């Protein structure tokens, strides 16, 4: 399997790896399943103005799954929740030049954003 430069870069130097201390300002989304070969955990920290000021991830999965989640942590930072929810898997796939068999990794990353936002909103409603 040949990987794009960008996938390799995110895989070699993943951005924003880690765990955020859980409190009301943090939303956590975990999607995927071990038996399917990928699990993504994405966390967002939202400030008083409703802006995502930090994001962290941990991913069990192939290089493309790691790259997709690393990329979205960069993309969501500085965005409002509504803006972050606009991020589409096709944008992720395009940015990383994912081959067709790896599109599901970008779908999973989009799902992870939605799950993290949901979790934050549930905590703060």
């Amino acid at each position, binding site marked *: 399997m040949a990987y794009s430069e960008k996938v390799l870069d995110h895989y070699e130097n993943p951005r924003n790896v880690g765990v955020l201390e859980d409190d009301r300002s943090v939303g956590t989304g975990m999607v995927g399943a071990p038996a399917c070969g990928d699990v993504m955990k994405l966390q967002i920290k939202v400030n008083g103005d409703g802006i995502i000021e930090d994001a962290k991830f*941990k991913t069990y999965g192939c290089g493309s799954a790691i790259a997709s989640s690393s990329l979205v942590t960069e993309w969501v930072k500085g965005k409002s929740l509504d803006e972050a929810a606009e991020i589409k898997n096709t944008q992720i796939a395009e940015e990383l030049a994912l081959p067709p068999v790896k599109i599901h990794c970008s779908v999973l990353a989009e799902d992870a954003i939605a799950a993290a936002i949901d979790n934050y909103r549930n905590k703060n409603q």
Partner: protein
Amino acid sequence: MSDIKLPIYLDYSATTPIDPRVAAKMAECLTIEGNFGNPASRSHSFGWTAEAAVDRARQQVADLINADPREIVWTSGATESDNLAIKGAAHFYRKKGNHIITMKTEHKAVLDTCRQLEREGFDVTYLDPRENGLLDLETLKAATTDQTILISIMHANNEIGVIQDIEAIGEFAREKRIIFHVDAAQSTGKVDIDLEKLKVDLMSFCAHKSYGPKGVGALYVRRKPRVRLEAQMHGGGHERGMRSGTLATHQIVGMGEAFQIAREEMATENERIRMLRDRLYNGLNTMEEVYVNGDLDHRIAGNLNISFNFVEGESLIMALRDLAVSSGSACTSASLEPSYVLRALGRNDELAHSSIRFTIGRFTSAEEIDYTVELVRAAVKKLRDLSPLWDMYKDGIDLNSVEWVAH
């Protein structure tokens, strides 16, 4: 470490390089100056010298397995030998019965041949191994019926390296007068094979797992008691009618030479390879949550098949780009299924996906093993640091109790 050539080849069960001593002999059988004749030519010396070279190789192969050279049939490799043995025996003995027994962990050359026979109307039983990969003789006995005409069980497994007890299986098969075929593609030069003692009727071999060339193999066909086969390749009647086709002198000479070297050097070679394998095993086994696949004792010296829990297989292979190894991961196979051999041992998908097969051979050095240990440890650590499953495991969460949101 600086003089290590990357990538490091640790895939000797996929194939081996040809030993330079073998290549030199093969090169003598190619050009006009060399032994290029057709071994079947009876009317001139070109044919006679080619035939003499083939006879010598036949003796060399027979010597490694303590057989009579007249029991050796040349083929194009172990795949063809398996096909000839299984289809040939099934077709010949069809009137005696239509039941065949094999194992789920066999090579595809055996499994797909059996599938074909099922389409032709044979019944095939595919036995499960025990968790350690070995066949329980009682399972075999229980599956045997008065219709059983053929048992096909491999010697050393290509993925996990475990060695089946073909001596005990042979005794049982002989007692029941059932033909016993053994795929020994992975065991020549690694395990002693004495066909005077073993009650094996048909045995498949190839050269390229034992430092000989690809594209040549042999089938052992027992003479006493005599085993009959229906030919699968028809033509000029070579190899006593069992396998037609002009003999490839250079390939056959290469296989003979490789098998002679195997016989002469296997004792010391296996000792050295086992030390390297143990060095690799000891280097990796001190990590948490690593699982060896298959029995460690009944195993060829050069094989270590090991799963790294909470690490995904494809990302591991990606991190190990400096190693030429095989993986049980779906992502590295054409079928997108994790290894069927590991599944047959009862390994779950995650462990099957995260398995790596290291196979060590004649040209592996201790420096390469030490480098490999460092590389694998670093890769596994990096990927576990990235893995939410690892965090959950460390927090004491049972992953089976989690409700996963599958997509």
